[in-house]
């Protein structure tokens, strides 16, 4: 399946999880980690989080806001929101196809 973040390698999936976490507003690193763990049931390590955050920021997909104490929130940019929507639509179509092949109907 084509990815919108092909050069992210092993950080493509963590990056998608981060973008989903930021989709309802700016968050700092710890809040993103909690969001991801709540959503997937798996923890995201701090090393992975910041490797993905750095890549997303470099690509202009997210941007850093002024720090609050020492914690710096991040938010989606316009490009990031478009990128996330495209990825989610593609995943949704892929999931629908899988469910159809299993003979199950989507909820």
């Amino acid at each position: 399946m084509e990815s919108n973040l092909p050069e992210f390698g092993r950080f493509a999936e963590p990056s998608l999880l981060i973008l989903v976490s930021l989709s309802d507003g700016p968050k700092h690193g710890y809040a993103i980690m909690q969001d991801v763990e709540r959503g997937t049931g798996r923890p995201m390590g701090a090393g992975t989080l910041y490797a993905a955050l750095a890549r997303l920021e470099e690509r202009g997909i997210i941007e850093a806001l002024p720090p609050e104490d020492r914690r710096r929130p991040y938010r989606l940019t316009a490009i990031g929101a478009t990128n996330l929507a495209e990825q989610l639509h593609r995943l949704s179509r892929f999931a629908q196809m899988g469910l159809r092949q299993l003979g199950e109907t989507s909820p």
Partner: protein
Amino acid sequence: MIAFLIRCYPSSWRARYGDEFAALLEERPVGPFDVADILLGALDARRRSRGHAATLSSGRGFTMSLRIGGIAAILAGILWATSLVLASGTILEVDGIVTGLLLVAGAVTLLVALAGLSAFQARAHPLLSWVAFAVPAAGAVVSLVGVAGMTFVGDRPMVGDLSPWYIWVFGTLTVFLGSGLFAIVTYRTAALSRIAAITLGVGSVAVTLAVLIGAVGGVPEAIGIVLTLAGVVSFLVGWCALGVDAIRLDRISAAPRPA
């Protein structure tokens, strides 16, 4: 332990993320999984540290391209609209040299605007953005050749049987069609204002239609004039709005961030 883990990262990374990373690690206990993950992250950051310096430099270039592209887009819209109105001779008769200079300035600023804004949009959709850059940019170059030909060759054939005027018209039509393509890509990437992109797209299509109707004939002249005026105004407003939006985004990106 936290200080040791952070020291594993390269200094450029620590300067940017060190403080917030330390704050994050202080918020929860660091277990063996975290240590391994952080060490792998540090390895990744070191591997990319040379590229990171290049990225910082490209980040500065990115905001610069937005600013220059935005200013050039506003100027290009104004120069193209003014020169087209003057070239039509319907509102004001001016010296041909003035119109020619405006056409040249319009083509050059449009090239700068397209390069700057495409560099920004290419961050999300490289192929689409550079195709949308290539078509109007090629049109602007052909239009420049046509203007130069009108100045130095006059009405004589310049390429085959074509006089410079036809070359200029071909280049200008390509600029309008290419601007329409640029508008579609801008709408698709949503990197800049979608309303501005729609306005530019409408203007590009309207002017192209007006020129084609004028060439084919059979349509009342009034319709052609209205279509041309509406198209030129929409083209002008579209480019100016894209320029203003790019400058606004540049200000947001370039805003100083407290350390």
